[in-house]
């Protein structure tokens, strides 16, 4: 029987606690939203098989706890990532302000070979909430994304499944492109191996 070698893409979802990382991921993979997701402790991931331009790929979506304190342990997962999704809550200005530090932190810890071209995608979540609660305008968010080298930006609602599918399609596409470019450089790293030894040095706080 022919072996089926399909690429495994590793995607890391980051953002402040409560912005909706777990909800987005579940909306995308399991097509449902419930208010009963608990705060994420530790880390978990979901896998989804997707077709990108007729190629079947497996996408592993890593969801970690949003509280800063736990990041020092989570950094081990960043390594080998093919795409990083930065999530904020459009009704919460602080969660937008921290995007930059999430991005920096990721780049430091994951240390991708070519940080300037590493694919990020920004999601402004919870757009279903009433307009008067909105804290960050689309214009402002797009300005940020542009200033960071043209990061794709989506406004989403995990609750009402708005733009979730579309956003993850771009995420998958960019991750695949990244994975392929890494492969070309010849230094293929198993994306899911992590090593504690290096982690001790990486206290994020």
């Amino acid at each position, binding site marked *: *029987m*022919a072996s089926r070698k399909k690429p495994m893409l590793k995607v890391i979802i980051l953002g402040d606690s409560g912005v909706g990382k777990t909800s987005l991921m579940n909306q995308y993979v*399991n097509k449902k939203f419930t208010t009963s997701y608990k705060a994420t402790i530790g880390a978990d991931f979901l896998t989804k098989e997707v077709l990108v331009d007729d190629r079947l790929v497996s996408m592993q979506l890593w969801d970690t706890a949003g509280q800063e304190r736990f990041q*020092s342990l989570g950094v081990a997962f960043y390594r080998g990532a093919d795409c990083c999704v930065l999530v904020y809550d459009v009704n919460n200005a*602080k969660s937008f302000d921290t995007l930059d530090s999430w991005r920096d932190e990721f780049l430091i810890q994951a240390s991708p070979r070519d940080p300037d071209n590493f694919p990020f995608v920004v999601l402004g979540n919870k757009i279903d909430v009433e307009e008067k609660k909105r804290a960050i305008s689309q214009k402002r968010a797009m300005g940020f994304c542009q200033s960071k080298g043209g990061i794709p930006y989506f406004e989403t609602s995990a609750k009402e499944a708005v733009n979730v599918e579309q956003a993850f399609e771009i995420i998958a596409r960019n991750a695949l492109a990244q994975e392929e470019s890494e492969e070309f450089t010849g230094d293929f790293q*198993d994306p899911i191996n992590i090593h*504690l*030894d290096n*982690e001790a040095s990486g206290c994020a*706080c």
Partner: protein
Amino acid sequence: MSVSSRSTRDPIYTPPESPTGSYYDLSDDNELDYNTITHTSTGRSVKLLYSKSKVYVHPSASQKDNIAGFMALLQQKAPAGQSSSSSSASEASQVLLAWIPESALGDAYDTYVKVDLIDAESPPRQSYLVPPPPASYSTGSSSMGNYAFAIPVSQIYSMLIRPPNIGWWWGSLVINSRSGDSFPALFFHDSECASTIAQSKRRARKTFDPFGEDGRLFWGGDEVLRWLRRYVRVEKSQVEPMLYLVDPTKEDLVSFVTKSIVDLKINEGSSSAGAAMDPITKVFKEARWGLLERLTRVTQFTRRTAETILDSPQVPPQVRRLLKNPEVVNLQDEFDSARLYLARWAMGIAEQSEREHQRMIWTNRDIMELEDTDVGEFEILEMDTGRDAAKRKPLTLQEWNKWFDRHGKLTVTVDEVKDRVFHGGIEEGEARKEIWLWLLDVYPWDSTLDERIALISSKRDEYYRLKGKWWDDFERRSNDEYWRDQKNRIEKDVHRTDRNVPIFAGEDIPHPDQDSPYSEVGTNVHLEQMKDMLLTYNEYNTTLGYVQGMSDMLAPIYAVMQDDAVAFWAFVGFMERTERNFLRDQSGMRAQLVALDHLVQLMDPKLYAHLESADSTNFFFFFRMLLVWFKREFKWDDVLRLWEVLWTNFLSSQYHLFIALAILDRHRTVIMDHLRQFDEVLKYVNELSNTIDLKLTLIRAEALFKKFQRTVETVDRKRAAAQGKGKGVTQRRPVAARAGSSSANVTASGSSAATANGTCTVEDDGPSISDDLRKLLSREIMRPDPTASSAASASSKP
């Protein structure tokens, strides 16, 4: 690609048309006329009522192996003596549902194509005659090599129908017969199928709605289902979402699958021998897609067989047989993740059968398993004695009250109380409410009743004083950034904590704060109390700040006490024990993960070696369990029981690490046989949530603790003896760097001989016990190391 080209074929064969043009009254003569066509054993032909092209069988995971074919409805002649009455029952027995590979059709291929393209609502008026399908149902199920089949529609029991996933997956259909056979899964390659393409185009033109019945994208299977419904009643199962039942009984509809799984009993020796399919296989086959659906969340498995699990002694023979079933093997090849699922599933069944013979003694197997981990002798716990059985019942309030003298002073020793709670737990209700306050150090063990009454009243005042610090400070509440941030964090988590538990469910009061993100959803009084308590804890412990996980730890305490002031102090007692889990630098969590690392190295070197090879010795997959003391892994009632056991510190203040070890030990076979990478281990352990049997875990943990204790004693004794004999040239290796490092400072003798500086060797003095390990024997609560972090225990105690 297997799409065979037909352009090179001989001139198109057109079957003779029925002279009457009528579908129903076709005479035998007509059929006999048709018999000039070859390759039918009976020399008869059948009418092709409906056909659908480009329905594939995928015999392997490789696209190359796909076999294109037709799905068809065929009408055979009524059996002799049975008139062709129009009663649907007899019609259903004459109509066959078939799948035939293109390559087997020969000249009839063009007829099939033609009928596919007719695209009518009902069978063609003209009769299209074709040879009978190559494999017939009556000769038995289709063999694995030959996928073609035909089955009278009346003999179809159920169908698993999986619509396509927005173009990324082919819709598929699996047919199960009444006699328990499953035919190969059929995949509808709609993008190649002329009729489906035409139909969906027409649909889109007509209604601008490309969606089928359930609002899903229209696909080939919809048509097959619609056609089938002409001959039989097809109903959706109310239990399994993708299961359709043919002419079902009422009972079938509501109880199918779920009931069979619940009823699934593994009775040793009673397995029905012979050809009859055992119930597990049946359930499994029918639940195939249901299973696979759940698999989508599972990690990727590298190509590996399930054979190893078959050899595991824990898996009952029936399950082992099932896993060897060619179809199941095929499934595992098709879907990498199926293997993990099956491994876990088999494990679950093993657990269940274990529970069934739940005797409170160690079975031989358990002992052997423990012996297998190569450390010393093992002492069987005296668990089956009469004394022990009584000790393992929950402590009741009545029993508890008897232990007090008339001043309300405890007359038994603290150890006796702890022993009792450690082994039996506490009855729910009033007993728990009272005794938890002792276990959590709110009440001193030597207090009198009067003292306790006074104490609780002053504690109550103290709570309200602390709460007043923020409650009465309007300025702070509106302008203090830090305070507001803390409030938001707490609120967001409280609203996500144990909402399935009745007192936390529902939103029956309006939110007090208009600006809160929850102002629209509302809240309830218990959620509000929880928020207040967590905010107030920040006044008590002014350096820690709210950390995720705390709300999980408070909820059970509050739910049991249902009194904010009292619950607050019990929570303080719990936090005393777990504060180091929440430190800013995470040093407390690291230390515990390292201790667990050492413990596994000592107790189960083989498993440890395996985890090392899987890059998993950071033990991060236990992070959640250790952070909130298994709150997310056990069901609510079990959490209450486990926590009261742990709070006793009866054997060790670090007993939670032995619970972790027991869980790991329980699953060591699966882990060692199947999990080769960190992500697999993490996923497997995360998904143990809500599957772990607490009772068995507690027993196992106790045995492991005793074994650990003996190991330490033995090592110490040997060491002392060696030194006594003057062979004391042996020297301890320098203690390896502690935090964060997975390097061994516990090494089995002989496995690494040279020390770091290379000057002295460790001779046969056995494993050494690290300080981290020795601490696990202590019953003293471990507090944050005051030098380790700025956020140490500088709490402003009242």
